[in-house]
């Protein structure tokens, strides 16, 4: 007898491949979590904590039936980011999250991946709404939320590792599908 963990689907966009996170993503994630850029998502973090974060991303799929993908730059096979639906225990509501690895900023990758992830959440997971949480000082991420058509809500969400975050509400499915 065994538990067969849920299949994790692969999505493709013009320039990106959204696939299951795996052991090959540990090194680029370590680089990201060792850097100051990770300060908006609970970093900086040690290799041990990064490994557990990676394991947690994969485990989210098993417990929720969905989770975030490794966003691979299709042309190079490099890890460009981690994007997708996220709603662990204690989260305020179902979220679309995005982290961009070092050196992949300014290419529109987060936008491209987040649109694909939102489409998946609305069409495959049948979400009727979605939020994105953005750390208070993370202006680049807030700008991305606005580019995706989100509007900011009045309330904020405070998390013990991520600090206080702004709450952006995505357009409804009928507006973006």
């Amino acid at each position, binding site marked *: *007898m*065994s*538990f*067969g*963990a*849920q*299949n*994790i*689907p*692969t999505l493709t966009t013009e320039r990106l491949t959204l*696939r*299951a996170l*795996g*052991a090959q993503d*540990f090194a680029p994630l370590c680089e990201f979590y060792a850097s100051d850029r990770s300060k908006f998502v609970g970093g900086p973090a*040690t*290799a*041990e904590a*990064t*490994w*557990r974060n*990676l*394991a*947690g*991303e*994969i*485990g*989210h*799929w*098993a*417990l929720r039936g969905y989770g975030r993908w490794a966003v691979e730059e299709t042309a190079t096979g490099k890890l460009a980011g981690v994007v997708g639906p996220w709603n*662990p*225990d*204690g*989260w305020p509501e179902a979220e679309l999250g995005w982290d961009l690895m070092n050196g992949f900023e300014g290419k529109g990758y987060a936008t491209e991946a987040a649109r694909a992830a939102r489409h998946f959440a609305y069409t495959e997971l049948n979400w009727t709404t979605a939020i994105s949480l953005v750390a208070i000082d993370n202006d680049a991420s807030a700008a991305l939320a606005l580019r995706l058509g989100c509007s900011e809500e009045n309330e904020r969400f405070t998390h*013990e590792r991520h600090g206080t975050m702004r709450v952006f509400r995505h357009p409804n499915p009928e507006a973006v599908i």
Partner: protein
Amino acid sequence: MTTYTIPEFSTDRLLLRAPKLADLPRVTEFFASERSHIVGGPLNAREASRAMMQIYGMWALRGHSFWYIADKATDIFLGWTGIINGPAWDEPELGWTVVEEAEGKSIAFEAATAARAYAATQLGYDGVISYIAPQNSRSATLAKRLGASFEREGELLGHDVHVYRHPKVGAAA
């Protein structure tokens, strides 16, 4: 598509299986208790659920991790055991933790024996170590009962630990 499998098997009284959402209240209760400080607690509900997610991911990343120990008759969560080998670990470790109600019934012994045999025969990890906090005399007693012996003092994630070495159990186990 990516898939991975968590093997499940039973012993005389126990089931070693994948975590389930239904276990979460008991897991959270454990992590809220003083007892959990040996394994990084106390943790709140959301961190407890995160620990559960990480067990799944470790199976996917490494092909081994912890099983939840459940009562074979009732399926009630009693603790966990299995092989962990994080970046900070010296080598694969056999770990075990049981809830208070499972103390004194040889449950950790039964589960850890089965996990150790699985590691030796199915994973190729034989003669593994266990990290034990110096003040955790119950766990040291269990390690000795499992036939392990004190090897050295060590350090793990900023804590002093005692490293116990298990005997090779091989295919005979």
